[in-house]
């Protein structure tokens, strides 16, 4: 959470760091803002406060509270059980495999997304006929429903009639039309989920990097060229360091999104019995929907919540996305 406070001194968002004409020479017309200013502000911000407290913060409190309660299958609160729900979460024999699978899920998806996006951005940043069309097409998985994108891949991998499977057979990667049972087998279904997750994460990441590339000074590139630096050397010594801000932000947002991602695994691996392709997020929904254990689901949600906070905090501490370059 430390990152969020960094922002406070400068609430102007994108305008931060830009010269603000008039800002400096216009002194405060009044003294410190007081109670009357707060009263004047309330009509403007109260609706937002109601939404934030009522639909985000209060449910979070409800979730923490429920994680210590015994809630019957029908939803009746039968009193406090202390940390029994947490004990159930951690004693579930598949918990640690699921935990480590979640880490693999996040790390692999984010790492591949960033590396591939760096390449994509490089291509889209160069001038060539039709570039605008390619840029527009890259947006599609960003706007399209992740459920629908995943479903077409799921269908494509089906034995015999799946088109992706047929393609893999045709190019010789798979040797029978029956295919590999990609979506029937937890390990391969999980692998394909990772591929889909990377695919749908690429547009946002690529566009973030493209925005970063726009800040690389043209004359520096020119100078590097004059000095005889090759394309690779220019990229790694000049362009990549400039992308630090864009990259660290893209990684942070991707970590949060990928960790919280439900639809891909739900579609790809949801019909596989057992818990061999689950992440923490899909497990939460299995507790709620299949087992009707809202109390245990709440405990696992709290665990997930803490994991996200820890990952983000560590990341912000190590990478310092706000650091000026």
């Amino acid at each position, binding site marked *: 959470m430390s990152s969020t406070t960094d922002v406070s001194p400068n609430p102007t*968002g994108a305008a931060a760091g*830009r010269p603000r004409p008039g800002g400096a020479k216009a002194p405060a017309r009044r003294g410190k803002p007081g109670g009357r200013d707060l009263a004047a502000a309330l009509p403007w911000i109260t609706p937002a406060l109601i939404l934030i407290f009522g639909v985000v913060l209060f449910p979070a409190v409800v979730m923490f509270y429920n994680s210590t309660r015994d809630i019957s299958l029908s939803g009746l609160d039968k009193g406090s059980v202390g940390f029994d729900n947490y004990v159930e979460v951690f004693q579930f024999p598949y918990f640690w495999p699921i935990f480590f699978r979640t880490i693999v899920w996040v790390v692999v998806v984010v790492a591949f997304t960033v590396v591939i996006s760096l390449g994509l951005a490089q291509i889209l940043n160069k001038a060539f006929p039709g570039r605008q069309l390619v840029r527009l097409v890259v947006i599609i*998985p960003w706007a399209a429903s992740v459920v629908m994108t995943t479903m077409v891949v799921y269908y494509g991998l089906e034995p015999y009639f799946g088109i992706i499977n047929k393609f893999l057979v045709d190019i010789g990667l798979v040797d029978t039309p029956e295919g590999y049972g990609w979506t029937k087998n937890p390990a391969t279904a999980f692998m394909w989920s990772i591929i889909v997750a990377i695919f749908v994460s690429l547009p946002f990441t690529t566009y973030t990097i493209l925005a970063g590339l726009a800040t690389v000074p043209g004359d520096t590139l020119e100078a590097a060229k004059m000095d005889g630096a090759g394309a690779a050397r220019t990229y790694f010594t000049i362009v990549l360091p400039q992308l630090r801000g864009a990259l660290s932000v893209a990684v942070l947002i991707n970590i949060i999104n990928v960790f919280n991602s439900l639809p891909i695994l739900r579609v790809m691996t949801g019909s596989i019995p057992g818990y061999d392709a689950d992440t923490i997020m899909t497990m939460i929904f299995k507790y709620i929907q299949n087992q009707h254990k809202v109390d245990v689901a709440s405990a696992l949600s709290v665990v997930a919540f803490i994991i996200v906070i820890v990952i983000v905090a560590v990341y912000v501490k190590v990478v310092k996305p706000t650091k000026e370059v």
Partner: protein
Amino acid sequence: MTVTETRAMLASDAGHGASGRQTPPRKRRYTADQVPLGNVLLRMFAGLVVLAVFVVPYLIMFFGSVKTKSQILSVDPTYFPTEWHWENYLDMWSTPETPLPQNMISTIVISVFATLLVLAVALPAAYYTARFKFPFRMVFLFLVIVTQMLQPAVLTSGLFRQFTALGMIDTWAAMIFINAAFNLSFAVWIMHSFFAGIPKEVDEAAQIDGAGRLTVLFKINLPLVWPGIVTAIVFTFVACWNEFAASLVILSTAGNQPMSVALTKFVGQYSTSWQYVFGVSIVAIIPVVVLFMLIEKRLVGGLTAGSVK
């Protein structure tokens, strides 16, 4: 740096244009004029590969949507449809798996009203926090950021219990509130940054001319922050349109569910009517893709304006 702020920055490029303080447009780098033809061809080839990768899943979807059921489930499938069965786009609305017309209406109602609610709530807050100082202003903005760190998926069990207690479980209203609440922070930040980009002198001049606060907001500021509002609307609408996790748990009646949830019922069926799944998907995807493409220029640009330069 936070998620919201960055997303706001990512999308806010035009805001500075609107404020009239933008630096002159930079020369496009890597201009084609001194690039050898071989390089241009290489780039075009790379672009073509990218194009293919990103369009193929949706082409499969489209081709599948005009095949017959026996074609799409054929053990010897063809990449392209051998016959084009456009009537699928009429027939697909009645399938036994789920009431798709109702799901479509559900998606539309939830997205439209959640977007309107976001706009009604975020616009005043963004305007006021960008323009006026008041006690706890930073606390308020911090709260807005906190909501961005939380996604509905991780709070589902809390949301489920709360809306059950309120008797609002399985209602569109619940999903309208949830979608609005979780998209609020982005809308506030993007519009906040646009409002902050308008010099205060503009307001002061108008006030000297006798304009009231509301007149200043609606007549003077709104036209200038219009690009920010459009961006906020598009992002919110698309996010609501595709929302999945909370809808999955909150909406249990088939007819109340949005498309994203309804379509998953086709998975794992013995013989799925994939042609209908894909027809519906195409219909659901096109509007939001077009919306996103309309603001493409604003997706690129503003990201590193504050943090790196």
